[in-house]
C-alpha cells in the first residue's frame, strides 16, 4: 500500500468512525447522568477505542477477579477521559496471537488496547499495549506491576495505567489517578470533608468534626489538604496531613480565615483573612514555617479572597469587591495593578467569584451570574474569549482537573447542590457523587506521581 492510498484510507476510516460515533452519542442523550449541552460545544469527534477483556497469563480465580476489576476501571476511566468512543467488543474478537487490524478496523476502532495479566495473583503483572489500528502498528507497550493490595491501591494503579494510555494516544495528561475533596452537608447544618476518586468510586470521609467546613485545597502531591473549619468556634484555616491525620493551624486571626491554597510548587500558602477595616485580604506565607506572612492584595474595607495561582506561581486570580460587587481579577504577586477578567457592566448588578486557574495555564474558570443565576464561565488569563459552559440550574465552585480540560463543580440542576464533572471540549457532563448536598470541590494533582 503506498503512502497516498494509506492516507486516503485513514481519512475514510476517520469519517466512518465519526458517523459510527454519532449514533451511540445520540442514544446517550437523556441517559443516566449524560447531558449534552447545546451552547458552547461542537460535537467533538472521539476516535473509537476497543478494550477487549484482559488475556489471562495464568489460572486461578484470584487472577480472573483482578483482571475483571482492572478491565472495568480502565474502560470507565478511558470513557471518562472523554477522548475516546469506547466500542463494544464482540466475544469473537480477542487479542491473543497476532493482532488482526482489519477486523478491529471494521469494528470502527482507531485505537486498540490489549492487556494481558500474569500471575501470581498477589503480585500480578499487567502488560498493556496500545495499537494504532489505522496505521496498523504498535504505538506503545509497558508492563505494570500491580500492588498486592486489591483495594484502594489496585484501583489507583489502574487509574494510573488509564492515564498512561491517554498520554500514549494523545500526548496529553490524563486525570484518572486523582481525587476530589469536597464538603458534604449533613443533618442539622453540620458539614465535614469527604474525598472520592475521579471515577466516583472510593468515597470516604476525611474529617469527623461535625462542625462547619469550607474550601478544601490539595497540596501538589495530593498528600495534604488545606481547609477552613469552625471547630474552634471561629472560621480558621488548617492543614491536614492525609497519611498521618496530623492537623495544624495555618491561619487563625480574629474574624475570618478563608480559602487557603498551596502555590503549585508547594512552597507557599495563600490565604484570605480579616484585616483592620473588617474586610479580607490575601496573604502569602511560607508553607513549611507558616511565617513571613506578606499581604498581596489591598482591598480592605472590601474583600479579596479565593486566590488561585498560575502554574508558574507568579500570578494569582482572585475575587475582589474593589468595584463594589465581587468580580474576578488577576495580578502579579511581585507587584503591579490587578486586572479585571470577569464580565463587568457598569450600572448592572454583576457577580463573579471563585476563580480556578487551569494547571495548563491557558484558561481561568469562575462562577459568574448569567441572568441572575451562577454559571460556569471560562476565560483566557487576560479575560478574553469568555465562554459560558453551563445552562441548567445554579452552577458553582468550579475546579480544574490536572488535565486542564475537565472541571468539577457543584450544581443544583437536579434540585440540590451535587458534584458534576464537565468536559470542556465535548460538553459531556457526569454526576460524580450521589444524593447528598456536596459543595466546594477541589481536584488533586496526580496521586502518587511524585509531586506533579
Amino acid at each position, binding site marked *: 500500500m503506498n503512502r497516498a492510498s494509506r492516507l486516503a484510507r485513514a481519512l475514510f476510516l476517520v469519517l466512518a468512525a465519526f458517523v459510527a460515533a454519532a449514533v451511540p452519542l445520540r442514544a446517550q442523550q437523556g441517559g443516566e447522568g449524560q447531558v449534552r449541552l447545546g451552547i458552547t460545544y461542537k460535537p467533538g469527534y472521539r476516535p473509537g477505542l476497543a478494550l477487549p477483556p484482559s488475556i489471562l497469563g495464568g489460572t486461578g480465580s484470584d487472577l480472573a477477579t483482578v483482571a475483571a476489576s482492572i478491565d472495568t476501571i480502565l474502560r470507565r476511566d478511558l470513557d471518562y477521559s472523554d477522548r475516546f468512543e469506547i466500542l463494544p467488543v464482540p466475544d469473537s474478537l480477542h487479542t491473543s496471537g497476532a493482532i488482526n487490524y482489519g477486523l478491529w478496523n471494521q469494528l470502527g476502532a482507531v485505537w486498540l488496547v490489549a492487556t494481558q495479566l500474569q500471575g501470581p495473583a498477589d503480585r500480578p503483572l499487567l502488560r498493556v499495549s496500545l495499537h494504532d489500528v489505522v496505521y496498523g502498528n504498535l504505538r506503545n507497550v509497558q508492563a505494570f506491576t500491580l500492588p498486592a493490595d486489591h483495594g484502594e491501591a489496585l484501583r489507583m494503579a489502574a487509574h494510573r495505567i488509564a492515564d498512561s494510555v491517554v498520554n500514549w494516544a494523545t500526548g496529553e495528561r490524563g486525570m484518572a489517578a486523582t481525587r476530589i475533596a469536597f464538603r458534604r452537608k449533613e443533618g442539622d447544618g453540620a458539614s465535614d470533608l469527604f474525598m472520592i476518586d475521579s471515577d466516583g468510586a472510593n468515597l470516604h470521609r476525611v474529617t469527623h468534626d461535625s462542625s*462547619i467546613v469550607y474550601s478544601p485545597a490539595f497540596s501538589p502531591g495530593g498528600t495534604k489538604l488545606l481547609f477552613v473549619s469552625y471547630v474552634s*468556634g471561629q472560621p480558621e484555616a488548617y492543614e491536614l496531613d492525609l497519611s498521618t491525620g496530623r492537623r495544624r493551624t495555618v491561619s487563625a486571626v480574629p474574624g*475570618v480565615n*478563608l480559602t487557603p491554597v498551596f502555590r503549585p510548587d508547594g512552597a507557599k500558602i495563600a490565604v484570605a483573612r480579616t484585616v483592620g477595616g*473588617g474586610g479580607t485580604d490575601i496573604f502569602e506565607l511560607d508553607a513549611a514555617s507558616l511565617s513571613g506572612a506578606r499581604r498581596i492584595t489591598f482591598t480592605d474595607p472590601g*474583600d479579596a479572597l479565593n486566590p488561585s495561582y498560575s502554574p508558574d506561581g507568579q500570578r494569582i486570580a482572585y475575587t475582589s469587591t474593589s468595584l463594589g460587587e465581587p468580580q474576578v481579577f488577576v495580578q502579579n504577586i511581585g507587584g503591579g495593578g490587578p486586572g479585571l477578567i470577569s464580565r463587568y457592566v457598569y450600572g448592572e448588578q454583576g457577580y463573579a*467569584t*471563585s476563580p480556578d486557574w487551569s494547571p495548563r495555564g491557558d484558561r481561568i474558570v469562575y462562577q459568574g451570574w448569567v441572568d441572575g443565576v451562577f454559571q460556569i464561565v471560562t476565560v483566557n488569563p487576560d479575560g478574553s474569549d469568555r465562554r459560558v459552559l453551563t445552562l441548567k440550574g445554579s452552577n*458553582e*465552585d468550579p475546579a480544574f482537573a490536572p488535565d486542564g480540560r475537565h472541571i468539577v463543580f457543584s450544581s443544583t440542576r437536579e434540585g440540590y447542590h451535587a458534584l458534576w464533572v464537565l468536559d470542556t471540549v465535548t460538553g459531556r457532563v457526569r454526576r460524580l457523587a450521589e444524593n447528598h448536598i456536596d459543595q466546594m470541590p477541589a481536584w488533586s494533582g496526580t496521586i502518587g506521581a511524585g509531586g506533579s
Partner: protein
Amino acid sequence: MRRSLRLSPLALVLAAAVACGGNPPPQQGPQVNQDSLAAARARQDSIARADSLRRAQQRNQASAELCNRALAAITAGNYDQARSLYKQAQSQYSGTACGDRAASELQRLDAIETIAQRVHFDFDKSNITDQAAQVLQRKAQALRQYANLKLQIQGNCDERGSNEYNLALGQRRAESARKYLVSLGISPDRLSTISFGEERPIAQGHDEQAWSMNRRDDFVIQNLSASGSSD
C-alpha cells in the same frame, strides 16, 4: 402503751395547733403518761418544723425553677415565654429570691429583647441602613444601662452568592454593627464578631422575602446569667 397510742392523734392535733400559733389547750381528761406525751409533742413539733421548712424549700425551688426556665427561654429567644414566667414568679412567689427579683428581670428582659433585635442588610451590602441605625441606637442605650452584658455579633447572608464570599460579607456585616455600636460609646471589649455566611438561614424559602430575612446580624448575649443593671 395502748392508751398513749390511742391518744397520739389527739397529740398530733394539739401539736399542729401549737405549730399554727393557736393557744395551748388546757390539760384535761384522763391522765396520761406525761413523758410519752411530751416526747410525742416534741416529735410532732419537729415534723411540723421540717414540713414548714420543706414547703418553703419547695416554694423556693419552684420559684427558682421559673427563673431558670425564663433564662432558658431568653437563651432560646422566646422572650414572651420568659416574660410570662417572670410574671408568674412575681405574682405567686413573692418572698423568694426569684419572685423578688422578677420585677427587675422583667425590666432587664426588655433591654435584652432590644439588644437581641436583628438588623438587616441590602443584597451584597454591609452598610448600616437608616432602619438598622435606629435599632442599633436603641441597643446602645440598653447596653449602657446593662453595662456588664457582652455581645457576639453574628453576620449572616442569604443563600445567593458563593459560600466563601458570603463568609467574608457576613464578617463585614458583623463588623459594621460593631463599629456603629462603638461609635455610640459601647466598649469594644464587650463586642465580638463572627460570620456564619449562608450557613444559618432563619427563613428557608428561595425568594426575596426569605432572602431579606436571612441578610442579617444576630446579636447573641454571651453572659445572660450575669446579674442586674449597672444603675
